[in-house]
């Protein structure tokens, strides 16, 4: 752990430094990665699904994930 990182950790622990954006971006990055994998598995599920109602629900989920991934990418690019 570098010196500055150590100081910021101690600062966070003592509540005198705000939690930095980096930790938020790291969390978003991880979540986006998981969502991408989830989208792939949902698409596979959609291909195999024959029930119309369930297909609709899967399509909705894929659309939501697409929007969430886009949101995540916007945050990461900021």
């Amino acid at each position: 752990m570098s010196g500055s990182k150590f100081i910021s950790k101690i600062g966070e622990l003592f509540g005198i430094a705000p939690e930095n954006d980096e930790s938020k971006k790291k969390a978003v990055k991880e979540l986006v990665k998981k969502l991408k994998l989830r989208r792939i598995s949902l698409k596979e599920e959609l291909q195999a699904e024959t029930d119309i109602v369930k297909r609709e629900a899967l399509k909705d989920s894929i659309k939501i994930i697409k929007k969430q991934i886009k949101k995540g990418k916007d945050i990461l690019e900021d």
Partner: protein
Amino acid sequence: MKRLFLIIMIALLSYAFLQSKNILSVSAGVAISLFGMLSLEEGFRFFAGGLLDKFLKKLTSRIYKSIIFGAVTTTLMQSSGLVAVIAISFISAGLIGLAQGIGIVLGGNIGTTTGAWLIAGFGLKISIATYAMPMLVFGILFIFQSSKKLKGFGYILAGLGFSFLGIAYMKEGFEAFKETIDLTQYAVGGFKGLLLFTMIGAIATIVMQSSHASLVLILTALAASQITYENAIALTIGANIGTTITAVIGSLGASLDGKKLAGAHFLINTLTGLVSIGLVPQFIDLIDLTAPLLGIRENDYALKLALYHTYFNFLCVALFAPLVQQMVTLLNHIFVAKKLEESERDDVLFISDLALDFEDTAQIVLLKETKHLYANVFDIITRGLSIHKEDITSGMDIEDIIKIRNHALHVDMDEFYEKRIKDIYGKIINFAILAQGKFSDTANKKLIPIKNANIRIVEAFKASKHMQKNMLYYIESENEFIKAEYNHIRRNLIKQLRNMQLIFNTTEEDIAVLLLSKLKLDAQKYDIAANKSLDNLIRTNKITYAMATSLMNDTTYAYTISSELAEVANTLFIHEDSDLKEGREALILNETEVDDMTNNLNKRSIA
């Protein structure tokens, strides 16, 4: 009873003060010292909110770490009581386990020994009042500052000042006593004396609610030769037992785990006390043997007592640290959570005044109690839909649930509200308001949404209650169209409730984030679809006007349940303690984004 005791105490003390100015001096010393302790605790509370709880969470992962944590914090704060309160409050909030809590209590016992050394080695040997005066002046000066940290520092300084001043008064009183009366003439020797003075020590500590104050009193009396060394040892054992009674009384309002910890504290100190009573002669020999090695003079009984106090508490740790897990098992057997009967009134599980001491604890307790309220409301909403809560978690196909549960399930919603919701809801709101008034704006930003989630939960219940009457009537209706519509409402709500359960139970963050957005989208989609269907039914005269009115109202109630619970899930999920908290909040779709999606889907379906 309490009031009678107070009146007797006042009468006795008043009589004693009239008889002897020295008793007044000693009592004033005790009172000032106790006030100092209160001030010291108040000061540490200013820092504890943001600091101590963070340390507590990180540094108590293992028993030995908990013991070190307890010892260090008690040494710094000179109050095992405050450390025990913190531990009870964190256990109640589920932040640490019972084993860690016991570790902290054991460490706290070691921490208290430093106080005895400070008083015996420093407080009784110099003119301590000289140091007290500037501390009091600067302390009060800092208390009047607006900065919370300076204010806290002021309380600590003033607390130390008052404690020192109290010791000075006690010392003065006992010194003066020496010239007029020799209290050692009341000394009782032998085993009988040990038992008697142990009892006196315990009672004095229960009355003063501070083992530290008792110890100061014992040490000053011993230094002034007003009590014998053996009797002082017995009083010290008593003080260690008495302090646990204070914790037991304090834990009456705590959660079950808080009670377990207080029980552990009582068991540890009482059993060590009993062992120590039997070993007093051996301890005296050990002290005589080891005191010269530490440079303690033969007739310095105050320091020898400090050494005894140290041995006592180390014995306590040596006896019980290896038995922590067994103790947890024993306490889990003694304190068993009562299973709530259907007809019984439910009450809060986590909320207690103790949880109001620290920001983090208050937030977590509020969150847990909100989940408790949600669980009750979840139960009644499912019954309102004429299904069982187990159907939701069963994994059974929704169509199958509708088929199986095709009869109305009669349940008294008002009675359920009285027994399972009203009290809990009231206490949660009261707790949240008290916490809001006590903590910083940053803490309030977390507390307010959780409080509002409770309001939403109850709104969902009310909507469910309004919907129930027609639901009971129409799911057994002979008009297939209205029956189908009500089953559609049931189907949709079962799906929503199922998704909520998944959100609370899943460990996959991405699933939860996806489902939270889906809850909102489904609520919107359902509302649009239900209104269209209603229009069709009215236009084609398939349902009567009365049915249409009921359906219109109940569609709105179903939407209220759905949307309110979606918001509740959102809030509870976001405020759950997690490293990914920031990320999960950012990726959940907001109202506008959900509206955009529903509009797009709607346009597509029209086209």
